[in-house]
């Protein structure tokens, strides 16, 4: 099978069952996938710079998703990060707030509007 070059994905998501669905679909599509259930742990994992894609939920405990995004995009705090950051959230925002987030991230998806397979297709189109 001509799968994608093996890519490592970090899923920062506090709803375990949602992460389980995503990881299942990602692994079946040939990706490696890890999950962190809160912001602080997710931030630490992301800053190791060993992931190619980071799926970041916004409503997460300890450190908020927005704070994680800011820290990852701050060169002083995260000197090296090659990963694409995709916001995956069910949170609704004001347009200007959302625009600001989208500007800092490489994609913005509403989880309730996509299925796991659609997520995989989206990521494949990103990395193709």
């Amino acid at each position: 099978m001509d799968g994608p070059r093996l890519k490592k994905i970090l899923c920062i998501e506090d709803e375990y069952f949602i992460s389980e669905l995503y990881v299942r679909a990602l692994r079946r599509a040939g990706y490696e996938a890890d999950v962190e259930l809160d912001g602080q742990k997710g931030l630490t994992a992301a800053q190791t710079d060993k992931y190619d894609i980071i799926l970041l939920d916004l409503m997460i405990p300890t450190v908020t998703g927005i704070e994680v995004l800011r820290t990852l995009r701050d060169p002083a705090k995260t000197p090296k990060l090659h990963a694409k950051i995709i916001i995956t959230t069910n949170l609704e925002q004001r347009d200007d707030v959302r625009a600001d987030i989208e500007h800092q991230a490489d994609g913005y998806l509403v989880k309730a509007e996509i299925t796991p397979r659609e997520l995989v297709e989206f990521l494949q189109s990103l990395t193709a």
Partner: protein
Amino acid sequence: MSYFERFVRQFRARLLLVILLNNALILAGWYATDRVLKLTGWQEIAAIIAIPLLTLVLLPWVTSRALTRPTKFIWQAIMHVSPDTAADMPAPDPKQLRLGRELVTNLVNQLYQLTSVVQKMEHAGSEAAQDLHTNFVANHLPLPFIVLSHDDTIMYANEAAATYLSKPATDLAGQNVYTALDMSFTSTDTLHDWLDTTKDKAAAADHSWERVRIGLPGSNNSKQFDLAAHYNQGNPLGYETLLTLFDHTGTYGQDDQSLSFVALAVHELRTPLTLLRGYIEVFDEELGAGLDPELQRFMKQMDAAAGQLTAFVNNILNVAKVEDDQLSLQLHEEKWPEIIDAVVSDLQLRAGVRGISIKTEVASDLPTAGVDRYSIYELIANLLDNAIKYSKDKAVITVSSTLNKDGLIETSVRDSGVGIDGSILPYIFDKFYRSHQNRSQIGGTGLGLYLAKVIVEAHGGNIWVQSKPGEGSTFTFTIMPYGKLEDERKATGSQDITRHAHGWIKNHSMYRN
């Protein structure tokens, strides 16, 4: 009579006595020389001169001693209370005096009293200086400023802090700081933890935190600020930890103004929805092929229902946003046929569950449209959703687009469903309006058409309906070509044309195009 007068009297009496004694001694001496010793000639003259000379020495010595002793005592007392020499000079004991004892005792007591008054004044002066500092300076500081004791109790909060926390300063004083300020931090580095590690270990330390929050996000008294703390161990006045708050509720608050009730509810609704859609897809992939047709159809209907639920949740949220008058549309130049195709292909999946098909008749020579892609998608999707809902099984829905005689892009969604009664038609675009005839059979929130109207009018177009009960309905709306909007863009000088008052959930499928 004062002590001093008494002393003078005593002294004069003493002096008189001494002089009398002195004279008596001289006379006695002369008498002895003449009659007793019977000295004559030069011996007699020498004795007569020597005797007064002796007494001349005796007299001053005795009187000077009487005067200098009290003076010495007073000198000793002064040296004793003077700050420079106090250590070297013990207090005098006037009981050792005989002449002028009362005077000296009295003077020494007065001296001690004076000294204690001076000390009190000095102390009061420094207290006043301190009061000046805390009450005047700290109170007029425009930054909220709080002082904590060793056990984290608020010892002092200035006026700015009282105003900021909406509590009188007297209420704050004496409260534990964590009770008075229910703070949340953006990480596990909290004030409490920092104080725990710093207290009693460092002589002095500073730390700061960004985006500390008090109050629930989205509530009226929620505030966000940066916090700076200075700790100093064993401060003699008990002022161990000083806190300063720098308010940033305005800028930080924008991040969570969206967390209103509706947004929170939507978030809660979406979580199980995400799971449902995910599991449905999994079962469809794993089992779909092997199921018999009826069960396969049920699978597809589950998927459709989940999709509908998502759309309804979006609608509810959009209406809330419209109410709030938040957000704005960004109008861009778009190819109209592409937009129609995208919506139709998404909705075709839902329609196909009941065998309904959607046909498109889009004129090939349409100009580009000036639209907000996401909200226009929402509009057409709502119209199609209605058409599907009110159509019979296996019906056909037609979407057609042409350029009308006014130069506007006119789009119609035609169904052959139950149709709308004439009496209801005028209200059909109102919020929550659902004809009671239909409510029991067909689900819906009555928001779709309300939103459709809002979107179309925000784009500068119009929407209307033609319908006949039993034959079906045709909803038509107009959209301005991009060319017409160019003028407006030139006038405002911006890249996009922004329209206000409504905000939209951007549907994911748009990212695919």
